[in-house]
């Protein structure tokens, strides 16, 4: 067994916006919000996730892949890595279009990996070959795991439909300019400013971490990472990206997508109520929460965190059980804002209707209105 991985840690800044009526807005808005939280990062990582940005390809999985150096491993020619990956994609999926992700070189982001995106569909014959009750989503997950684990220097950094992640080494506002996110329009945006304490920042280590249409930006450090990782490995997840945020993404994927738990229940499993509170609940609830903790104990996320996780139909923000990282939420009209600081919200929404600091362990769950997007 491989026990020789090393964990990146980070303390950071978060911002998120969702228009529950599906109204799409430019990335420049969230850029403004995260730029205000400049000092929450140290320039070694910034990133964004956006939903609704590829309306012309909304039925295709949009794979964002970077070809880059991997910390602690020897590098080969990145064009070789791309060739190998593209050959794999052509052989496994139906690729509608593959292209470089448009970027603008600035003096703030001087060097960068090869950055490509591919709009793909699952081939029925390939899916049938695998069998075993796998559906299209499972198939794409296996493709992502394969590329991340088996193809050196290639990393899938988003794999959802009609959404995408944009991230790299640099302050988030500089990464925003690099990817020209002002040109994209989405109904949900999340942003992240990273302060890794491992000085070797690398493009794959920036947030968000994604799988299918889940994306997670995270401020915190998962003290339970050691066991969360081993728990997920038992279900076949491969944690290649060495950052504890990856664990959060996969735990939600396991509980919500694979096991079909409602997302609120998954939140209660990862930030479970204390026994002192469970013991005072009425009998049937007490039994249910006890069972939840007994079954998902290895999935409990311990350590300080504030997390925003987005998916195609909503946005969820939550804290650890004793709120060791800041997290503020606000609403105005059909828009909900979440951020590490109230100032970041007021920067883009000077007069919100409601502003509050959500309680420890109680998630803020926002869903798109039915029928939109």
């Amino acid at each position, binding site marked *: 067994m491989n026990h020789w991985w090393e964990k990146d840690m980070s303390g950071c800044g978060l911002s998120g916006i969702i228009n529950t009526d599906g109204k799409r807005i430019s990335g420049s808005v969230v850029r403004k919000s995260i730029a205000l939280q400049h000092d929450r990062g140290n320039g070694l990582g910034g990133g964004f996730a956006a939903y609704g940005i590829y309306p012309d390809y909304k039925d295709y999985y949009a794979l964002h892949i970077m070809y880059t150096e991997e910390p602690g491993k020897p590098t080969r020619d990145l064009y070789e890595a791309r060739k190998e990956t593209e050959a794999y994609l052509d052989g496994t999926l139906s690729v509608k279009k593959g292209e470089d992700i448009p970027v603008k070189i600035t003096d703030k982001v001087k060097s960068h990996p090869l950055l490509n995106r591919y709009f793909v569909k699952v081939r029925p014959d390939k899916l049938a070959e695998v069998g075993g009750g796998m559906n299209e989503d499972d198939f794409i997950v296996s493709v992502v795991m394969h590329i991340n684990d088996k193809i050196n220097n290639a990393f899938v950094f988003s794999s959802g439909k009609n959404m995408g992640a944009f991230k790299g080494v640099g302050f988030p506002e500089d990464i925003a300019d690099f990817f020209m996110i002002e040109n994209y329009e989405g109904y949900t945006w999340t942003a992240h400013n990273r302060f890794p304490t491992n000085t070797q920042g690398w493009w794959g280590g920036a947030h968000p971490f994604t799988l299918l249409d889940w994306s997670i930006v995270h401020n915190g450090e998962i*003290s339970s990472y050691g066991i969360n990782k081993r728990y997920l490995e038992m279900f076949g997840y491969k944690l290649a990206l060495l950052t504890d945020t990856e664990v959060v993404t996969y735990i939600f994927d396991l509980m919500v997508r694979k096991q079909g738990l409602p997302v609120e229940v998954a939140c209660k499993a990862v930030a479970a109520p204390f026994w*002192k509170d469970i013991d005072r609940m009425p009998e049937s609830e007490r*039994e249910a929460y006890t069972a939840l903790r007994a079954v998902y104990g290895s999935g409990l996320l311990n350590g300080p965190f504030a997390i925003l996780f987005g998916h195609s139909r909503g946005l969820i923000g939550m804290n650890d059980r004793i709120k060791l990282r800041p997290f503020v939420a606000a609403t105005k009209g059909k828009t909900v804002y979440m951020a590490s600081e109230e100032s970041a919200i007021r920067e883009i929404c000077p007069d919100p209707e409601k502003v509050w600091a959500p309680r420890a362990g109680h998630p803020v769950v926002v869903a798109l209105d039915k029928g939109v997007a």
Partner: protein
Amino acid sequence: MNRTMPPEFRVKIDHEKCRKCKRCLQSCSFGVYEFHDRVMPDNNKCVACNRCVTMCPEDAITINETPNVYKDHPNWSLQTRKNVWKQAETGGVLLTGMGNDRPYPIIFDHLVVDACQVTNPSIDPLREPMELRTFLGRKPDKAEVTYKDGKLSLKEKLPPQIQLEIPIIFAPMSFGAISLNAHKSLAMAAKESGTVYGTGEGGLHSELFEYGPWTIVQCASGRFGVHSEYLNAGVAVEIKIGQGAKPGIGGHLPGEKIGAEISQTRMIPIGTDALSPAPHHDIYSIEDLRQLIYAIKEATGYKPVSVKIACVHNVAAIASGIVRAGADIVYLDGFKGGTGAAPTMIRDHVGIPIELALAAVDDRLRQEGIRNQASIVAAGGIRSSADAVKAIALGADACAIGTAALLALGCSLCQKCYTGNCAWGICTQKPELTRRLDPEWGAMRLNNLLRAWGHEIKEFLGALGVNSVESLRGSRERLRGLGLDAQTLDILGVKPAGR
């Protein structure tokens, strides 16, 4: 002509201090003392249990090790020579008690624990909730729940679990090996502290049936005391295949320790040696074990079944087989585990350390995707809360303490348990000795130990930045090795300190 072996210990009486109260004569259960106008010790009988030293009101007794009068030899320690002399004299098997006392490496002492600094805050156990509650038993991959109007409810109940308020249980020690008062102390403490104790293979005395909810009843190869009421008396049934002190051989209760009460509880004749068979004679393969596990489940309405094994070379594969055979708990007993009686050679040379076995079993069960199907209990040389924390980080759901529990009851580790002369009233059946152990006092001492260790474990958790023990369980990342070779680190799944 037999060699006069030098006594192991020398008893020195300070006759100026001694006021001839004769309490030492009353206290000693090994026949050391006589009184001929002053206290006269017979050094040959002394086992250094220190009961007399504790009881002497004038502090007039000193016990020292006898210096070696023979020529030193690096290969032939005095003990090795004594063993050969004894066997040449008697033709017998060397017998001993408690756990392995050879200087094997202690792997726990080569593991160090992480703490949070700066990037992650440590948590204050005195001011924040810190949770040790643990559930032993089979758990499904997924919880079947419904969530409606903000209320969670369970669609499908979990298989039965044993709830522990602290991840430490009392190791099974038989009634026979230890006294009824010792068993009572363990039962009462288990109830008070919210944990469980094991009956061991001597059956369950009728006075202890009331502690059923805090009892794991054992079914060992001798099947002592096993009847249907017994099987249903506890919260779980434990099938004892082996124990760390003597892997591959059965339990051993010398005839000297078998009086009327033992005879009745174990259902055997008074005064005969109770030598349990090596294997269960109905378990010759893993499928036979499966048959017994399910027979017991049917007999008890599907209570959890634990299977206790000694840690041996193939422990990972054996544990996997045991889980697939239906066990809800796998109890791993390392080679330093204690016993009331065992052949010295077996105790000291057979079996492997709990640290390595635990790591290997936890890894194997995860590799096979079945880790949640059984809880792992680790035993065999858990000396402190630090050992417990390290064992939990390696993958144990809970630890079991045997020797530590007996030490709490007053034991001084003289290793003479098999003689039935325990001066502390712990591992004897003689009424004049067993009355020395008051169960209420014993339970208080055990509760104190668990409370102390519980607080210490919470301090560790707080320093680690976690507030529930399940976030430490199996998190090898929180341990580092110091002075261990690369292969051992790999087996433990632990990085070297500095990485």
